[in-house]
């Protein structure tokens, strides 16, 4: 066992671990910026909490590394059921802010089960897709179970309503069935069906969600309503310029022009103060995490590990794409966190635990 421990430390994925810590540090700096109040010149309690969560997240990461990821196969469904239960609890006894119910108050912590839902969906999908596809790849009939597994939490999350998480759950699932070997014919069928269904889904959107879509296409249509967020976010990022205004010198976030400065729009806060240079560093860090995730997926020792690595990487990628796409006005405002950077305990701890799983997959290919 001693030899095993030595090998374990030797093969610990320091690259990924340092990438994660670097992203969390950028997050901490941005939360300081977003919550800084020049009149009081004090550190906001938000920053302290974020620091505590980074510490808790690191612990979660290390615990996840120690767990043999193959054991997760037997925990996939129980964890999934637990998360679905929590999502139902949110609906019944959840804590409402700004028109939606997303949190469960645990006293010391506001748990946001939709952050756990992403990991739960990945685990349960991978658990199902670990079987070899039949000759010719997975077809439409094989998608019934993944569709149900996605449908339950997605419906609960959309009900909150949390359009962003709902969208990410769908995108993660599509990514996983694609990599797991969905045949091209089925993919074409789904693409056509998706295009046809898009206008239908308009019906199910809440008025404010529709308004966001309208203001995405034409932000000036409602410059004080939902278009305001997009315009203000673009101005903040653009005003940052190539090198940025400097730490704590941003004005957009400070003067409350930006909504959700420390969560959904944290990228705008960062890009205003650190400019294109900072933003590109951030994107490079994410690109490195994705590259590392893909590398781990390709070198995993079993199909389950490989797909799990793809799933975790997909969570990171889609959230980055949707969040930054939204902040730069390329996508409608759906409200989603920037992984490892946005303020928030649930998202940070869940994301760091997911990174731990990735490291665990990488470490264990040397151990068996």
């Amino acid at each position: 066992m001693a030899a095993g421990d030595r090998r374990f430390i030797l093969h610990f994925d320091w690259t990924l671990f340092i990438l994660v810590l670097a992203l969390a540090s950028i997050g901490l700096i941005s939360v300081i910026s977003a919550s800084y109040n020049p009149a009081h010149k004090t550190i906001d309690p938000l920053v302290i909490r974020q620091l505590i969560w980074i510490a808790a997240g690191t612990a979660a990461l290390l615990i996840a590394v120690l767990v043999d990821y193959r054991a997760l196969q037997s925990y996939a469904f129980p964890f999934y059921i637990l998360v679905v239960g929590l999502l139902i609890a949110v609906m019944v006894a959840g804590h409402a802010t700004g028109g939606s119910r997303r949190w469960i108050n645990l006293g010391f912590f506001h748990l946001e089960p939709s952050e756990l839902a992403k990991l739960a969906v990945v685990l349960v999908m991978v658990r199902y897709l670990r079987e070899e596809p039949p000759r010719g790849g997975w077809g439409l009939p094989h998608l019934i179970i993944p569709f149900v597994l996605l449908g339950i939490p997605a419906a609960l999350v959309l009900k909150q309503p949390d359009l962003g998480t709902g969208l990410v759950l769908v995108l993660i699932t599509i990514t996983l069935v694609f990599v797991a070997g969905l045949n091209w014919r089925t993919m074409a069928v789904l693409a056509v069906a998706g295009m046809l269904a898009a206008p239908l889904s308009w019906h199910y959107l809440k008025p404010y969600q529709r308004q966001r879509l309208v203001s995405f296409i034409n932000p000036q249509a409602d410059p004080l309503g939902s278009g305001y967020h997009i315009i203000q976010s673009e101005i903040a990022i653009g005003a940052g310029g190539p090198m940025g205004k400097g730490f704590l010198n941003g004005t957009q976030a400070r003067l409350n022009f930006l909504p959700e400065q420390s969560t959904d729009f944290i990228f705008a806060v960062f890009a205003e103060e650190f400019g294109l240079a900072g933003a590109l560093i951030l994107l490079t860090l994410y690109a490195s995490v994705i590259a590392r995730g893909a590398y781990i997926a390709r070198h995993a020792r079993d199909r389950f590990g490989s797909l799990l690595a793809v799933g975790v990487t997909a969570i990171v990628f889609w959230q980055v794409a949707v969040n930054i796409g939204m902040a730069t006005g390329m996508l409608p405002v759906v409200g989603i966190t920037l992984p490892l950077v946005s303020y928030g305990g649930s998202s940070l701890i869940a994301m760091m635990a997911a990174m731990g799983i990735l490291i665990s997959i990488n470490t264990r290919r040397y151990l068996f």
Partner: protein
Amino acid sequence: MAKFHIPSKASRPVPLLEPRILTLTVMMFAVLGLLSLRLYNLQVLHHKENVELADRNRIRLQRVPAPRGLVFDRNHLPLVDTRPSFDAQIVPEDSDNLSLTIERLARYTGADDIPDKISDADEAGRPPYEPITVAERLGWQQVVALETHQLELPGVSLQITPARHYLYGQLAAHLLGYVGEVTKTDLQSHADYHMGDEIGKFGLERVWESFLRGDAGGQEIEVDAVGRRLRVLKEIADQPGENLVMTIDLNLQQAAEQAMAGKNGAFVALDPRNGDVLAMVSHPAFDPDIFGGGVKASAWKELMTDPAHPLQNRVIQGIYPPGSTFKIVDSIAGLQEGTLKPETEYNCPGGMWFGGREYHCWRKQGHGTIELHDAIVRSCDVYFYNVGIKLGVDRIAKWSNLMGLGIKTGIDLDHENPGTIPSSAWKQKRYHERWYPAETLSVAIGQGYVATTPLQMAQVAAQVANGGIRYKPQFVKYVEGLDGNIAKTYPPVIENRMKIDPDALEDVKDGMADVVNGAGGTAHKAHLDNVVVCGKTGTAQVVGDKGPSSEDETEDKTPEQFKDHAWFIAFAPKDHPTIAAACIIEHGGHGGSASAPVIHDVFQRYFQLNPPPPEPKIAKVLDEDSQ
């Protein structure tokens, strides 16, 4: 390296995935590249424009709550409106000696919690230079003081905001209710409210909140580089709340308030044709204006600890034994069940023996042998003991429930008390004891376990008036949309329709008419010259075992707090009635002397406003009543 060699599907499944993982990675990098291009576009190509926008971009958004809808009486006379009030605001950053400014501001406004309000706002994430409202609804003198001492008060400004105003002060306070600032609990259940918003807390203001509230608007406010407010650039119109037109008649309500002045108790008048509430008074009342803009702790404590419970709406929350007014229910139950006929005779020697105990009639001399009509007119207890014994408690309970007693009327107000109508099953459930027949005697005269609200007793009067239809009492006639058109109406709701023999009912009505107008009646004080008023008095015992209460109007020497509650229920005119009412005066003594005059005054005003068809002048019977 066997990278591109697939030895066996089962043992090395991962290489199978490899092409798609690579495809996926390429796609992901392409998206990140796209994002980088977008950033280059915003931060390099459009950098100058965006810097300019950010510099000029001194626009902050502020929510402006919509003015609440107005409330009118049935004739569209305003009862509640919204008018400008002056609030003092402070920008702490603009004051170089904040504590001195606060001290002066406290002196001029009398607000003693300014430092708390500032720290609360800062904790809630107030950005610098955002003003904080520290004193609301300033009086004229305070406004003048602030204006004249402006130079000593850097950072302090006056702000005009709409405030709820109740035009007639305490008038119908329990019905109209009041508004107040949202609490943290409110915010949890009302997602679309923000801290500092006003919300209906009680009465109509609470129940019709969604109509009255409207949609908030917004202001585009220009601020300077550090966030100081410069000017309002643009306003987004709010959507004011909708108006409510009530069924209340202001004139009648005023008459009722006046008649009840200085008394504790309740009065309610209904239209027996549709259940409209015409007037509703609960005394003592409170001033709804004091709740707006943060009620002062001392005023709140005073209201909460007042032994007379001014916040309680006695019309629906106050439960009292109905006393002899309950004899109307006995009569209808007996007639309906066939155990009682108008000509049924019982002898009253002043009391009767039952179950080894003597039960007194309020008139020690007795009433002799009388029929139903006289028993109602003179309110003979012994007669109704016999009616009750014949019926038994369960049949009394059945007809009481049918007439709406012991159940909620369903009026759209909070905290309605259903009262109590005992039955053998009820007693078994409540006390795990069987019903003793002797207990039926107290029930028959509306004592014992029986408890009703004034609104329920008004419904009893209304059902006698309209031939047995029980309407849900309603006090909002319609919602008036912003365009002035009727947006929503509230048609009458029939809760129950009793099949009742019209001849038998006529006998009860005749009896009630003679209570007011006939010889030996107990409520001559409710007599009107041009309309036949029908009524029934009652006394609700206050202290335990004092024996049956006196309906007699002889001098009562009982000390005030031990005096009985005085009931009177009535309707008019006798034929085709248009108004029914109930009144209770706490510790008023006798229904005939304390409550009947209230109903007299209100009915008199009602028939002045709504003249009845001409009828022969009704002679007032002169007897012992006119002292």
